[in-house]
């Protein structure tokens, strides 16, 4: 029989994120499917309050860690934290949201515990009393279903792997762990978060729409001139009006990093594709982007895809988009922005 541990952290408001609640759902599903007990380990200044939020999830045991040293995402402390939670719960399956915090430490901790780890886990399946996971290989170009013999097995779940847990709140008893750590071992001080050096936050993970700008925005237009300033204006206005998240192709992002005057708000963080992000949004609109394979692998989790490009034979036309509009993106976006403005004013 397996023993399951779900590791969670509270956000800055003391709540559990959507991603954390998805991980709770996965824990509940595994517990039922494998007929195994599960423990929830929560790190936060007041783990009892977060535990109440998921009090009705069916966990057999709640563990909490409230010591200050463990409140900051940092390898040296987070690895000790999970190691202690795992040892305390005797877990054979350790689930955590696949966030930057837990993905940073899960493989190292798995090694420390003599187990194995998988990150970017897409789906958990239980059949005949055994757990299988789905995972992508070669940058989302092929999907594998696999099982492992080694335990403990640490799993970092991708966002969207399960529906967020919904259920009754409830008063639960939380065992607060006192985890010893030698201050001399803490050589890293976390100073906080830094936003990109642009005036506007353009990456919005919860947006309905991903808007991708390609290098075509910076190329010479019909008048023989490049219009990067106009491009920047149109794109930013569209993002403001639509609430979309901004992505970029590698070629455009590289132009920015080479110091060329292109789109001032475009950084490597916006890059989508083989060496960039693989964001999850219900819809995606690509503009001035050729839809080459290294870029399109980053669209694996974009359900509905449309593109605007002057080339009717670009990559998007070959089964990579649902609709390709063969048109000038400058003109289309200008008109689209005007329609969005009208819509805004009429509200």
């Amino acid at each position, binding site marked *: 029989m397996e023993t399951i541990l779900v590791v969670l952290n509270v956000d800055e408001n003391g709540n559990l994120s959507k991603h954390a609640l998805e991980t709770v759902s996965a824990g509940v599903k595994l517990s039922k499917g494998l007929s195994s007990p599960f423990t929830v380990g929560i790190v936060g200044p007041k783990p009892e309050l977060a535990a109440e939020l998921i009090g009705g999830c069916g966990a057999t045991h709640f563990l909490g860690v409230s010591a200050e040293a463990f409140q900051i995402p940092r390898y040296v402390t987070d690895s000790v934290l999970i190691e202690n939670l795992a040892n305390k719960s005797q877990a054979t399956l350790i689930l955590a949201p696949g966030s930057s915090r837990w993905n940073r430490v899960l493989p190292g901790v798995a*090694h420390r515990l003599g187990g194995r780890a998988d990150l970017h886990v897409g789906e958990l399946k239980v059949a005949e009393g055994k757990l299988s996971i789905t995972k*992508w290989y*070669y940058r989302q170009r092929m999907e594998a279903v696999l099982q*492992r013999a080694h335990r403990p097995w640490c799993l970092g779940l991708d966002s969207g792997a399960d529906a967020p847990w919904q259920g009754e709140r409830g008063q639960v008893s939380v065992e607060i762990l006192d985890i010893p750590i030698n201050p001399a071992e803490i050589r890293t001080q976390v100073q906080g978060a830094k936003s990109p050096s642009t005036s506007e936050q353009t990456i919005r993970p919860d947006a309905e729409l991903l808007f991708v700008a390609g290098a075509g925005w910076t190329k010479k237009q019909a008048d023989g001139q490049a219009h990067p300033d106009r491009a920047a204006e149109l794109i930013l206005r569209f993002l403001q009006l639509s609430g979309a998240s901004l992505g970029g192709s590698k070629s455009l992002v590289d132009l920015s*990093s080479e110091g060329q005057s292109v789109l001032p708000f475009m950084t*490597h963080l916006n890059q989508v594709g083989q*060496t960039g992000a693989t964001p999850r949004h219900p819809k995606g609109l690509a503009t001035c982007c050729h839809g080459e394979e290294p870029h399109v692998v980053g669209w694996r989790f974009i359900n509905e895809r449309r593109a605007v490009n002057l080339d009717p034979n670009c990559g998007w036309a070959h*089964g990579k988009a*649902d609709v390709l509009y063969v048109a000038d993106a400058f003109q289309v976006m200008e008109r689209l922005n005007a329609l969005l403005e009208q819509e805004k004013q009429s509200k």
Partner: protein
Amino acid sequence: MSEGYHIVVCAGIVPDPLQTLQPVQTPTGWGLKNEMMLPAVLDPWAAHALYEAAHLAKKTPGSKVYLVSLAPKAKLQQVMMTVAQKAAFELVPVDGPASGFTEAFEVASALYEAIMGIAGLDRNKLLLFGGWESASRGAGSTLQILGEMLQIHDQFQGVDECTVNPDGSLQILERVEGGNHQVSVCKGPPVVLGWATGNLPEPPNNPQIGMSNMRTIMPALQKAKTAKIGADGVFFGSVELPKQLRQTRVVKDAQVDEIAREILEWIRK
């Protein structure tokens, strides 16, 4: 830091991203169809780690860059013909599979053996670099496991920037949620940095550096030890290409206004 760093960059090779990939079962497990025939490149994020390492070494006198790579040595030799022109390094090759279907723990063990065999490597100067994920296995695990094996507990993933402060401490920017960076200051080596894209463009080819590197690369490849790497304890139920063939509707000769209205309707649907 006047004494310099020992920067060990771990980088595998992967099929050129423009190639069509097809999974097949081989006698040794899952692999790619015609894997040995596919043109290969240095793993992209690890390549960024190499460029950052070379940049840091250039700014810090007394530093040395080692490129530790596990790959079939014939393929690695081909890739080195290009990579060797990008940055000065000493190659530490390990002859073994570059497949994504191998286990990160086993890869980390082979890399650990190779790193421990580097003569004169000073742990107190050690910066362990690599990509935060490979473009093959995409596990995001190998560096962390290797760091644990080397007992390095200051680890950073998704790194876009590492600057050396006047007191020798390292300021590191890691990618976190929402397009932000987490800023950390670490007292200094040893550290593990799993690089994202960083801030440096790909360096231009420099034939002089290439020739200098190749003088040590060829003998190193000849002496490369063989590592037996598999996926012990992993059972693949299936490996499939996604069934996502879209029937693309190509809209030509439509008025801009019509297109904009259709897109808006679709966004609002």
